[in-house]
């Protein structure tokens, strides 16, 4: 099981709230390491989130869900 | 970084005699051509003057008086170097080696012309010599940047020369191009032909500085002013600027104070022109001939031979153009897309 973390986007405001803006892969689908799985945003900066490992994606924070930088937004389980 | 270089006065240079004869020969060929085109242009416009009539209809902008710019500049170029020119392109096309038959056929609107008759005298495109021209003032500068950009990326020492008139130096494209060429260190030489007149508007009424060579400093590039329409002055300035571009030294600007011997366009009565009385006396060709004959570079009879050869070449091109087929109207919409 590997955690998918909300990436650090703001060094000036490490505690800033962000939002998960898009999941490219639905919950339960297989992903490969490095595959684009999500997009997140803090203020006006957005970033891509890639799968950290092969496996099945589990969505923890849904689209429009609030998260902080470093929070777990998803997991990749061995399939 | 600006240098306003006083011209090396004619008759006191160290140019090889062969080079000087070559410059004269090029200028004579250009003048002979322009005189012949002028003759052909007016031959069938009458009665009066109907611009749309005749074998060479439309506008005609001839370069008589500006031969020194083309001759001095193109002496340092090869067919692999690009030249972008203006609505007044013939001298540069000839000096750069554009095929005279194809160019003339284009001016006569024939299927065998450079553009199959689609472009005419202001839109001469010759891929073989990377020559192009355009009727929109100053807009040939940016394309030259692109050609230089491509040459630079191939690792060659090929360059692009972009020529405009002095009126163009007040257009946005001129300033954008100088900035970008300087910023990206492109192998371009910018040439401004100051013939005093933007159609009917003298430079003093259009330009905020005494010379566009002074504007070069604003973009961080060398600026050279060649006075007196001196072909050998152009030759020297071009040698420096072209050498600089070829060796990775970036762009320069040369302004040549040249002479528009005739009107802006053929049919221009030039009623506005206050310097008309002195124009014939400033004709660069008789002056250069006299200099070369005095220096023994042109022996007695040589000038006549050169004139005769030029005439034969030009008349042959014109005869071939007149005999060439007109474009077929059924194909009028061909070539819109590649």
């Amino acid at each position, binding site marked *: 099981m590997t955690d998918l973390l909300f990436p650090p986007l703001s060094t000036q405001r490490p505690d800033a709230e962000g939002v998960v803006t*898009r999941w490219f892969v639905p919950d339960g689908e297989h992903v490969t390491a490095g595959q684009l799985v999500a997009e997140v945003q803090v203020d006006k900066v957005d970033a891509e989130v890639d799968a950290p490992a092969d496996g099945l994606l589990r969505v923890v924070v849904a689209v429009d869900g609030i998260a902080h930088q470093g929070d777990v937004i998803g997991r990749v389980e061995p399939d | 970084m600006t240098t306003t270089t006083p011209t090396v006065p004619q008759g006191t240079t160290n140019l090889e005699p062969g080079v000087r004869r070559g410059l004269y020969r090029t200028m004579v060929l250009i003048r002979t051509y322009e005189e012949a085109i002028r003759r052909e242009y007016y031959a069938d416009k009458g009665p009066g003057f109907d611009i749309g009539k005749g074998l060479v209809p439309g506008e005609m902008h001839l370069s008589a008086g500006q031969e020194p710019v083309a001759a001095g500049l193109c002496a340092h170029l090869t067919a692999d170097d690009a030249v972008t020119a203006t609505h007044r392109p013939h001298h540069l096309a000839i000096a750069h080696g554009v095929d005279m038959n194809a160019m003339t056929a284009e001016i006569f609107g024939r299927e065998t012309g*450079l553009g199959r008759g689609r472009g005419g005298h202001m839109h001469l495109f010759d*891929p073989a010599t990377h020559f192009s021209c355009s009727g929109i003032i100053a807009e040939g*500068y*940016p394309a030259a940047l692109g050609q230089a950009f491509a040459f630079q990326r191939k690792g060659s020492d090929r360059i692009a020369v972009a020529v405009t008139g002095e009126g163009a130096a007040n257009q946005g*494209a001129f300033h954008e191009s100088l900035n970008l060429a300087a910023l990206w260190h492109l192998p371009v030489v910018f040439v401004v032909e100051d013939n005093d007149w933007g159609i009917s508007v003298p430079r003093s009424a259009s330009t905020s500085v005494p010379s566009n060579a002074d504007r070069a400093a604003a973009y961080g590039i060398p600026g050279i002013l060649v006075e007196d329409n001196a072909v050998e002055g152009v030759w020297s300035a071009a040698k420096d600027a072209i050498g600089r571009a070829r060796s990775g030294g970036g762009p320069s600007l040369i302004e040549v104070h040249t002479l528009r011997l005739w009107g802006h366009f053929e049919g221009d009565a030039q009623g506005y022109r206050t310097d008309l009385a002195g124009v014939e006396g400033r004709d660069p060709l008789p002056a250069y001939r006299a200099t070369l004959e005095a220096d023994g570079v042109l022996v007695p009879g040589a000038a006549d031979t050169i004139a005769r050869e030029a005439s034969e070449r030009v008349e042959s091109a014109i005869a071939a153009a007149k005999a060439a087929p007109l474009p077929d109207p059924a194909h009028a919409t061909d070539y819109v897309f590649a």
Partner: protein
Amino acid sequence: MTTTQESMAAAAHGTHRLTTAKAIAEGIALEMRGDPSVVYLGEDVGAYGGIFGATGGLLDEFGPTRIIDTPISETAFIGLGIGAAVEGMRPIVEVMFTDFMGVCLDQIYNHMAKIHYESGGNVSVPMVITMAAGGGYSDAEQHSQCLWGTLAHLPGMKVVAPSNPYDAKGLMISAIRDEGPVVFVFHKGVMGLAWMARNDRAVSDVPDEAYTVPIGKAAVAREGTDVTVVTISRSVHHALDVAEKLDGEASVEVLDLRSLVPLDRTAILASVAKTGRLVVVDEDYHSFGMSGEVVATVVDVDPKLLHAPAIRVANPDTPVPYARTLEQTILPMPERIEAAVRRVLAG
């Protein structure tokens, strides 16, 4: 003429989900990997990745000699693209907003688009101009225009405007490979940008490999029998929303033109011949543009194909206002499209 769904289903093996912006960047990257003469120039296209994301990630892969930030000198750098293309390169040059084409229009329509014709076919200009278009997020008069009607009106350049990631990637690859100039217009609202209102039609499956979508061919985005809605770009999404809403009441065919030049007149005529009723949706100005051209396409051939007058849903001949209440009235939003569909069915 294929349905977008068919294309996507056929390509389902070896696909991944992308936004339109990322699909465009991927198309560019694939071509750049294969052809060193492809370069991308424009303002903020490097580290920023393009204001609307069209070059996201490209600087990292290709470096600053191929993804090139320019000064604010559109005339100079569009012209530079022309000169480079004439000398054998395949440059992609970005005008940040279609609204900005005024400052460089001469290079576009008098030079890029005309050189091939003026030279009797002897000189080719294989370049792409990308432009962002469209409103709906209060960017007002000078930053919300589409202007593809103006571009399409001027001879010598192909004009494409994809509505979805699949078409965007395929059309970009086609545009780069085209031997002549192609203007590639991407509506900001189809890009799937995180900082604009979410649009689920801006994300879809895209084949992993390089593929082309033909320039000049429309796609039936949704089949129907009662009325044809001809449209392009962001308005395709609105038309599909309306068609889905009316499902059961009316069978609405949505034709996504994908290209304006060449215009797929065959597809327009085939669809109208089938349904007999035409609504054209165009986010460009109403008069003298795309919507009139689509109607003329039918009327030029056979007005009797139309069982009711064609209805055009376009921006009125009015600048796009700032205030949201005004802007939402000006743009061809779903409410206006639905009203037009109902009216043409009743007429």
